[in-house]
């Protein structure tokens, strides 16, 4: 072997030793790092290690020292170390298996410890869960307890009102509201409002208005009153909800002339429109001398040869009745064969006809304005049924001339159509206007009226004058009335073969007995009024009703001579010395009530005329009675 080879051999041997040492060192370092990585930093472990070191200082065997030092710190304890040392001492020479056994023991110890740790954690978790559950239970119990306490507090509240007292207190508003509901919807009531005109309340604020139509308060012995100084004086009546009827009683002094009248109006539409009822009519006051039946609506027998009737259904056929109230008219249930008719008799102003229709109306009208007065002249044509329900209407407008202009105006055409009608009697109404109806064409020849204003007169429209012929039939003795407004229309009327001279602008009455009459006028400009029906020909004539009803005339002599009955709701006045007490009633369902108030007025037409302006009417009081029917009376 050369020197180099020896050196190399020795070098390699040294390297081998160094290598082993390095390995041993590495092993130690690894174990140390494991020890540090096993997170044992507590002081107890360190202390144990120090103690181990102290023990090891007395041990001479390096092997034992190494083995002890190889044990992880966590597992080091004095007993184990002692045991290891003893074992080492006893079992010297059995290093590997002893090391192995020791390792196995260590593993077992580790395993046991881990197991203990897991069990400890489980126990801790269980305890935590248990605590949570207990906590929830406690909270729930606490809440229940609080609620229970609150209830207990309420019950045990020393200041609590006894239950029966609470019930009593609650019953009070229930009674009040219940009473209001009962009074409004169930019970019947009668309300009375007394307006003492000139009294203390009236002095504070007058019941009557406007102030320029009434006088200041006057006193005469025991009565205080105000004078009505102009027509249309207003007052209000409070109307409780659900009321049915209103009765107005008024005490006033009779300063009226023989022909003047007084009426009470009640508003029946949202616009200015009043329903009037007479409370003083000197003509109707004379009815006091006649027999009557009924209470609110009275049927006075004027013709002593007619029977005294108790109700409207007993009215004899062909009776002539004057009335100021709406009556259910009984028709003659007859059907007629009809054909078209053209009426070319000129008529002036408003007219009311009764016509017979099968199933429809087809009406053409020719209108010509005469413009004798200012304002526009529309002609409204309306078809009504016998209950006064409007079926159809049309308007022929003004010819465009609204000022006085007596030039011949153009003829205007208008048409009214109605279909799906039941066969029967209908009312055809032409409104009043400043012009002439030149021609009427309709699909029925059954058309009658109680009043005609013949107008084919040259003074209206030059060249239109032509003779007119009217037919009528009387079932009993009666009078026909003829009236003209113009001296230029003075003429001789031929009634059958008799002459009737019209030489006055006052009305002329012509007596007729039972029979048929033809009335001829050459000049026209004459108003013919009759309780019997007037038609344009005998063929057109028919009697629509079992009896004839016309408005009450302003002449009691006419009533006496022409009428069999007077049907009216006019209550005959009562006299109290110089004063008169009169009353009238209205059905509230026909009236317009706003905000619980009804507007009413006292109409004294004579105060609007210059010659009777000074005839003021003293009013002492107004007594208003309102009746409300209960649910069982309706």
């Amino acid at each position, binding site marked *: 072997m050369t020197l180099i080879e020896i050196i190399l051999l020795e070098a390699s041997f040294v390297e081998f030793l160094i290598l082993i040492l390095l390995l041993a060192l590495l092993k130690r370092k690894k174990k140390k790092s494991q020890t540090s990585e096993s997170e044992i930093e507590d002081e107890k472990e360190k202390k144990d290690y120090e103690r181990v070191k102290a023990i090891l200082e007395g041990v001479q065997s390096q092997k034992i020292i190494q083995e002890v030092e190889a044990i992880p710190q966590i597992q080091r304890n004095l007993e184990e170390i002692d045991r290891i040392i003893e074992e080492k001492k006893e079992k010297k020479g059995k290093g590997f298996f002893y090391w192995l056994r020791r390792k196995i023991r260590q593993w077992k110890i580790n395993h046991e410890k881990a197991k203990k740790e897991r069990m400890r954690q489980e126990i801790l978790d269980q305890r935590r869960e248990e605590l949570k559950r207990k906590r929830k239970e406690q909270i729930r119990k606490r809440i229940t307890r609080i609620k229970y306490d609150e209830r207990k507090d309420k019950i045990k509240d020393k200041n609590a*009102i006894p239950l029966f007292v609470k019930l009593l207190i609650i019953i009070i508003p229930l009674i009040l509201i219940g009473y209001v509901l009962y009074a409004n919807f169930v019970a019947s*009531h009668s309300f009375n409002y007394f307006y003492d005109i000139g009294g203390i309340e009236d002095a504070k604020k007058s019941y009557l208005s406007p102030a320029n139509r009434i006088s200041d308060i006057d006193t005469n012995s025991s009565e205080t009153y105000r004078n009505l100084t102009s027509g249309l004086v207003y007052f209000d009546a409070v109307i*409780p909800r659900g009321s049915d009827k209103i009765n107005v009683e008024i005490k006033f002094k009779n300063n009226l002339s023989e022909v003047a009248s007084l009426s009470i109006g009640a508003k029946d539409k949202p616009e200015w429109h009043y329903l009037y009822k007479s409370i003083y009519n000197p003509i109707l006051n004379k009815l006091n001398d006649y027999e009557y039946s009924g209470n609110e609506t009275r049927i006075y027998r004027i013709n002593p040869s007619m029977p005294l009737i108790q109700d409207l259904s007993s009215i004899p056929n062909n009776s002539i009745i004057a009335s100021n109230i709406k009556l259910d008219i009984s028709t003659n249930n007859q059907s007629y064969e009809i054909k078209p008719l053209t009426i070319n008799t000129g008529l002036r102003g408003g007219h009311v006809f009764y016509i017979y229709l099968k199933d429809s109306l087809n009406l053409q009208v020719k209108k010509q304005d005469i413009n004798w007065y200012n304002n526009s002249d529309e002609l409204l044509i309306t078809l009504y049924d016998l209950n006064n329900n409007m079926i159809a209407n049309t308007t022929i407008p003004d010819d465009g001339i609204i000022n006085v202009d007596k030039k011949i105006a153009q003829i205007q055409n208008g048409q009214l159509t109605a279909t799906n009608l039941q066969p029967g009697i209908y009312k055809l109404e032409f409104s009043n206007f400043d012009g002439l109806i030149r021609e009427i064409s309709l699909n029925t020849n059954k058309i009658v009226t109680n009043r005609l204003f013949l107008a084919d007169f040259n003074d209206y429209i030059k060249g239109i004058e032509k003779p007119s012929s009217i037919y009528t039939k009387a079932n009993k003795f009666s009078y026909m009335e003829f009236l003209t407004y113009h001296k230029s229309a003075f003429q001789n009327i031929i009634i059958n073969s008799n002459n009737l001279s019209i030489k006055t602008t006052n009305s002329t009455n012509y007596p007729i007995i039972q029979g048929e009459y033809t009335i001829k006028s050459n000049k026209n400009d004459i108003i013919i009024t009759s309780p019997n029906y007037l038609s344009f020909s005998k063929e057109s004539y028919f009697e629509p009703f079992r009896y004839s009803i016309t408005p009450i005339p302003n002449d009691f002599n006419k009533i006496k001579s022409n009428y069999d009955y007077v049907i009216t709701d006019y209550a005959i006045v009562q006299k109290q010395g110089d004063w008169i007490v009169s009353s009238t009633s209205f059905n509230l369902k026909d009236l317009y009530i706003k*905000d619980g108030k009804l507007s009413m007025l006292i109409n004294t037409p004579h105060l609007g005329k210059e010659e009777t302006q000074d005839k003021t009417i003293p009013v002492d009081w107004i007594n208003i009675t309102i009746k409300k029917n209960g649910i069982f009376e309706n």
Partner: protein
Amino acid sequence: MAFSKIEFKGKTAQTINYLFQSLLVSYLILLLIEQIWKSSVSSYFNLNYLLIIVIIIGILDVFSEHSPVKYQKPNWKDYSLISILGILGFAIIKYKTIELGWLSWLISIIAGILIVLLSILVLEEDEEE
């Protein structure tokens, strides 16, 4: 002052308070009915008599002990009631002003909104206190 010494306590105070609330609500309901349907109440009895009674009880209530009110947080019932009252107020004002045409819609809607907003304001003001 002599008046400051007068104070109703205990059950008497509670009774007076309860009675006052009951009568006041009754009066207001009847007044509302009278406003909507004229003469439906005043024709049968004079509301002024009830008002006098309410005032007297109210004065007695001022001199009564009041127990502290436990605050309760507003819930859906309170808001529902406010909504219903707002709608009711809108309907009543619309009915009374119907003649004004389109203006009545405007007035009613504003009034309804005002009722709702003021009620919420009062309700939540108590919460903040």
